[in-house]
């Protein structure tokens, strides 16, 4: 199967008065048609910036400075803003973390969904409103006809996120990027949204990229998981492999520091000492080396590349000199 999205060697820099600071340092990721990929990492690891760079939505003073990102064979990073504008919504849909700041507070939700349809598909206003109603039904909003005329503040957090998803789906995109869409929601509502996105993906055969800091959340959602640390992919594997045979010390640390419902009560969690490096203050060699318990002299000398793990699933790739020594170095 062909790759729908193929990112190779992506770098992103923040322009500072003191010079550029690197936040994303050579990310490689591929996504096939119909596949769902979970991108996991802690605050500041570059997971959101990587996805925003694809559709030309990076904030001011943050720029993609290298690499390619091919979507259906075309490099997104070299597209004009006009080409990207046509692609957003119709080919690549986005769901953002905070529906309260992403929705227009003075516009009825029906009109916000219809706007995308008029714009993307050239539908007439009545047809767009009819389709907006169908979309609200699709995302499971009760009494959708009344909700069409509601303002965002009249809806609960979970309902607002459903409206965001309806807007994301309006252009029937081939790729849906969900950037921490459940972080602001309660667990029971979070579970509803996860189920909704999974059902929609299966129904429409979309590819989904789900960005999150919660490894457990995407265990039931993603086909494959990429673990990011300090702007690089440290491990990339099918979901079962990540949980059964985590290989990179950071992935292992993340899993061990996650409290679960089957732990011994009052037991100490295995925590990872220290904090991730600041942008622009990346250590030489492996970015995880200063926090890693398995660090060797090779780790601080050069940067490990993402490479297949001997004896594991063929799709399992890890960037580590110690736990995946076959990886070799640059």
């Amino acid at each position, binding site marked *: 199967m062909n790759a729908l999205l193929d990112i190779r060697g992506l770098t992103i820099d923040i322009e500072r008065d003191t010079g550029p600071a690197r936040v994303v340092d050579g990310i490689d990721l591929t996504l096939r048609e119909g596949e769902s990929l979970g991108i996991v990492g802690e605050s500041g690891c570059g997971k959101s910036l990587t996805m925003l760079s694809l559709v030309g939505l990076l904030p001011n003073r943050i720029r993609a400075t290298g690499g390619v990102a091919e979507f259906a064979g075309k490099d997104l990073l070299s597209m004009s803003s006009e080409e990207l504008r046509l692609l957003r919504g119709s080919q690549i849909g986005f769901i953002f973390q905070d529906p309260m700041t992403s929705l227009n507070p003075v516009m009825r939700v029906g009109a916000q969904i219809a706007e995308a349809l008029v714009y993307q598909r050239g539908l007439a206003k009545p047809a767009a409103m009819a389709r907006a109603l169908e979309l609200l039904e699709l995302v499971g909003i009760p009494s959708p006809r009344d909700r069409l005329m509601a303002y965002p503040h009249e809806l609960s957090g979970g309902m607002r996120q459903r409206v965001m998803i309806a807007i994301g789906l309006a252009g029937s995109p081939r790729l849906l990027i969900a950037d921490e869409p459940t972080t602001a929601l309660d667990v029971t509502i979070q579970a509803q949204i996860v189920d909704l996105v999974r059902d929609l993906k299966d129904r429409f055969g979309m590819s989904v990229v789900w960005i999150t800091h919660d490894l457990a959340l995407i265990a039931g959602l993603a086909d494959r998981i990429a673990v990011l640390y300090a702007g690089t992919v440290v491990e990339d594997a099918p979901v079962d492999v990540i949980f059964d045979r985590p290989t990179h010390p950071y992935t292992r640390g993340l899993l061990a520091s996650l409290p679960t419902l089957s732990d011994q*009560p009052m037991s*100490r969690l295995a925590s990872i000492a220290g904090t991730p490096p600041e942008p622009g203050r990346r250590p030489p060699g492996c970015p995880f080396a200063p926090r890693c318990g398995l660090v060797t002299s090779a780790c601080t000398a050069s940067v490990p590349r993402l490479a297949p793990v001997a004896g594991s699933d063929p799709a399992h790739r890890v960037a580590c000199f110690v736990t995946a020594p076959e990886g070799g170095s640059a």
Partner: protein
Amino acid sequence: MTAPLLSIRNLTKEFPVRLGAFGERAATVHALDGFTVDIIQGETLSLVGESGCGKSTTGYCVLNIQRPTSGSVIYGGTDIAQLDDDGMRPFRRDLQIVFQDPYATLNPRMTIGEALAEPILFHKLAPKSDIRSRLHQLLADVGLSERFAQRYPHELSGGQRQRVAIARALACQPRFIVCDEAISALDVSVQAQILNLLLDLQEKYGLTYLFIAHDLAVVRHISDRVGVMYLGRVAELAPAAALFVQPLHPYTRALLSAVPSTDPRAARNRQRLEGEVPSPLTPPPGCRFHTRCPLARAQCRSDVPALREVAPGQSVACHAVSSPDATNWEHSPA
């Protein structure tokens, strides 16, 4: 059983609000309704529930940061719920709180050292000459080097700030600390560090915690007992070991089932709770959970279920659950 450190009886909090574009309609938010529990010396009692269930309000009312509408909180023979600000002051050093957002709770213009010294000097717990050694002791307790005393909050990471917030709560040598979502804003790897720190400090100083959180897995880790709250009322109160093995209230079961599992195979089939939490402005009559409950019957719509002990230490407020076995649930064996 040891004597309770805090005896909380029928604690209730209602907020009057004005609704409508011009505030023309008066209404009442029923945030907390009849909260009753004894908090035992040295234990960690956790409160869990979804947004708006009253768990934070409980923490604030117990400490009299928000004055309860009615009810009592007995600490050392005094009902502190009746005290005014001046009356509360001597009790504040025993009863401390750590908030969720370490960015908002530290004064950006005070160094860490000044922030930690302030409560010690205010309560006259140490002479000025001893402040330096006391600061170093506090910073060491929370795993920070003494260099941090000279720094400002903006120079610290989120995890380091939360350590400072904990150090400040410890500064008065308290007996009781409310941790209000104290680790919710932190990244996973840092969250584990802070959880371990809280457990270590509890062992070292014999602290009692009221731990307020929405993450059940975290709560399981740190708690002796857990209270599950729904719309201002306690649905179930049980030892942590029992609650997670044998949840009895239908809401507890739904909540546990919504927790993401790290086992990808288990995660794919879970039990779901339909709908959303009703508004605390107009809570449903009878059992407040009946609008979403799979077991709801006629009685649940009219009568408020009392919290009854149905297994040792395990109390449930549900008409459908009278003992661990006599329910119409299909039980997983304990």
